[in-house]
């Protein structure tokens, strides 16, 4: 939809993301209302070809798994309390290798916390959400353009890698309205669901070099399909502890880790000769961008890295961090969850942190930390 003429509108990222998900080929939204994800629910009710109001978050994700197994691309949006209920089924969908997209709108915890206050506090939970050391692809939009492109990438990645994908965002990102030229957005193509070639005979979890099995839905007339949540081998049946089934399970990590370059998104804006790097993600990225502009105006050489593929961590993120003398991590949680993900909990003279709990981090707070 890129055109020469602009169309400026007052819009929020929930609308942008919902539209992008549908244009990317998502078929059905299964929702259970929870603040601050409710705009997704109301936009999806209007826009998705199919919409279902689930009775609870466990049902929501189970229905989605059923839809995905039947060949559809399902989507939901929730916040931490909902995610907590979805966790067992998220593991199931990951194990069955079912494509789906979850939008997680972070709000202030713990527990029910403050439903209408934003946060970036769920990353640590997501890092370990799949039992055993597996990573789900997690993308975090840092502005409206990301909201559009990463929603598209989420659907593409979910289908290409047969996995649930999480779009990790927060209240201020998806509920704040801004002026925006919607005609500046790149056009989106619907994902291709045509089953990829495979070496016969078909087995539901048999893979080639790309380590992703060819998808056929339940009910198809060609091949018997078996999906399985328990430890299984290529045939989709339980083989407890067999080398084949263990290899199949470990493959679930490898297929994503080894090919992370195919879905590595980030933004690096660096002055030549800069020794200081600011690292941020999600809602805090815009404060970091403003801080960088202000620091530059005062004559400082500076670099800013906005991470968009949060998990699995692309190697390039480590490489960038390693190439600066001083790195300041900026995020809206108590302990620096992204910082911990990258460089651990240990305090080091190379790392600074700007953290806040219960309100947005200001550009001035980042500038003060860097200077």
């Amino acid at each position, binding site marked *: 939809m890129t055109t020469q003429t602009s*169309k400026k509108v*007052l819009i929020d990222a929930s609308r942008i993301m919902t539209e992008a998900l*549908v244009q990317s080929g998502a078929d059905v939204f299964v929702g259970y209302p929870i603040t601050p994800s409710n705009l997704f629910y109301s936009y999806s009710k209007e826009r998705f070809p199919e919409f279902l109001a689930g009775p609870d978050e*466990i049902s929501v994700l189970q229905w989605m798994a059923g839809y995905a197994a039947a060949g559809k691309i399902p989507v939901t949006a929730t916040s931490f309390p909902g995610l907590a209920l979805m966790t067992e089924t998220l593991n199931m969908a990951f194990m069955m290798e079912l494509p789906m997209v979850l939008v997680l709108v972070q709000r202030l915890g713990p527990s029910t916390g403050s*439903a209408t206050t934003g946060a970036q506090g769920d990353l640590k939970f997501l890092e370990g959400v799949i039992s055993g050391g597996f990573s789900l692809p997690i993308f975090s939009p840092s502005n409206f353009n990301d909201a559009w492109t990463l929603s598209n990438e989420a659907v593409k990645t979910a289908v290409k890698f047969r996995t649930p994908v999480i779009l990790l965002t927060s209240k201020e990102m998806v509920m704040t309205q*801004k*002026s925006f030229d919607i005609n500046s957005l790149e056009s989106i193509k619907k994902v291709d669901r045509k089953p990829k070639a495979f070496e016969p005979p078909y087995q539901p979890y048999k893979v080639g070099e790309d380590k992703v099995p060819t998808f056929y839905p339940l009910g198809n007339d060609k091949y*018997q399909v078996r999906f399985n949540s328990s430890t299984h081998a290529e045939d989709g049946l*339980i083989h407890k502890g067999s080398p084949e089934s263990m290899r199949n399970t470990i493959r679930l990590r490898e297929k994503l880790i080894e090919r992370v370059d195919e879905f590595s998104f980030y933004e690096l804006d660096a002055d030549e000769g800069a020794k200081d790097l600011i690292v941020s993600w999600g809602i805090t990225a815009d404060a970091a961008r403003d801080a960088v502009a202000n620091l530059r105006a005062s004559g400082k050489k500076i670099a800013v890295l906005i991470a968009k593929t949060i998990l699995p961590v692309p190697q390039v993120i480590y490489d960038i961090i390693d190439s600066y003398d001083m790195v300041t991590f900026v995020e809206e949680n108590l302990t620096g969850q992204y910082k911990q993900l990258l460089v651990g909990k240990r305090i080091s003279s190379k790392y600074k942190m700007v953290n806040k709990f219960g309100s947005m981090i*200001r550009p001035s707070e980042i500038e003060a930390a860097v200077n």
Partner: protein
Amino acid sequence: MEAEKILIKKKMPFCPGCGHIINTRSITKALEDLGYGTKDVAMVSDIGCSGLVDPLFASHTIHGLHGRSPALGAGVALGLNNRKKKVIVIQGDGGATIGLQHILEASRRNIDMTLVIYNNLLFGMTGGQVSGLSTNHFKDYKQSADNAEPYDIVRLSHQAGAAFSIRVNKMKSFNNVLKEAIATPGFSLVEMTSLCTSYSMKKMSEFQYFTVDEEKLVNDRPIGHTRIRRTKSLFNNLEGLNTQFSSNYKNKIGVVIAGSAGGGVQSAAKMLAQAGMLAGLHVSMKGEYPITVGTGFSVAEVILSKEPINYTGLEKPSAVLIVTEDGWKKVKDRITPDSKVYLDEKIGVDDGYTSKAFIKNAGKKGAALSAVSYWIKESDVFPIEVLEKVVENHKYATSLKSAIASGASL
């Protein structure tokens, strides 16, 4: 043409004499009798002894979590949306207890699928513990101290709207009952008695002493579907707000508007933001109000800027417009020495702030817009005509214009 065999293994992974053997055979026999081919059936299995069935079937299979298989099966059935394909869910009485909500939901929606509950009155895989479907008589036998009455899953699913709900205890009836259930359009539930030779009796004749009487209940209802629609882009109906006017402002200004629920605070803020866009400015807007949206304060923030806006926080508002006491209490601490404050006269605070009769002149619903209008005129951020332009095609254009005029005339 001979029907395809859905049961591919005669040797089953169950204890000798286990009721699950005959139950499983009865299901596949019923499907074969009804003429279903292997690719027409999706078997959904749960956790527990009944969850070991997948390798027995030549059909499609999906093996999920404890108790959740009726929800998983519901998703499959809705996703397939095809009367020629049959979704069969198999779970035990433990699964039916933990996943009771899913059974009620599938019943309520009358989703086209069949749930078969292998009820052996206990958790066989974990040592014979009692479930929500264990009868009190059986619990006494198991010396369970918990004697709460069991769920009647047949009546519950019927009450929730299932097309067909039945409890069957006699093995010789299994095949016919299953055929009737599977052939019923909509949601059918079959609770089948199943003997656990490890943790209950060795003989069915003794075990049946503990079971609930057979019962069959039907609801004549259409199959529950979702509607699949063609929809239009969420961008289609958005109002284009390309620049039509110019603004006198060079910098970034933040405006806080505060009032009470139902007082038009959020819509006044939106109109200010829209006007800012028409005047060629970048804008951001966010609202804050209690979870119970119909009462208490309502606060909105609008940032207007010549440059694109990244960070949307507003620590030092240039202007604070307050039209009610609720609004005053909520935002009074956000006022800085540099903030220009405009209050409704009724608030009665005298700190050298500008006090105007917004409510008196424009009414409770128009006061916030009236205050915005007054501020635009005072600050000269852009001509008042821009705000008038915003409301021009609004369905309440007349009253909005009058609120704008009242503010501008103060």
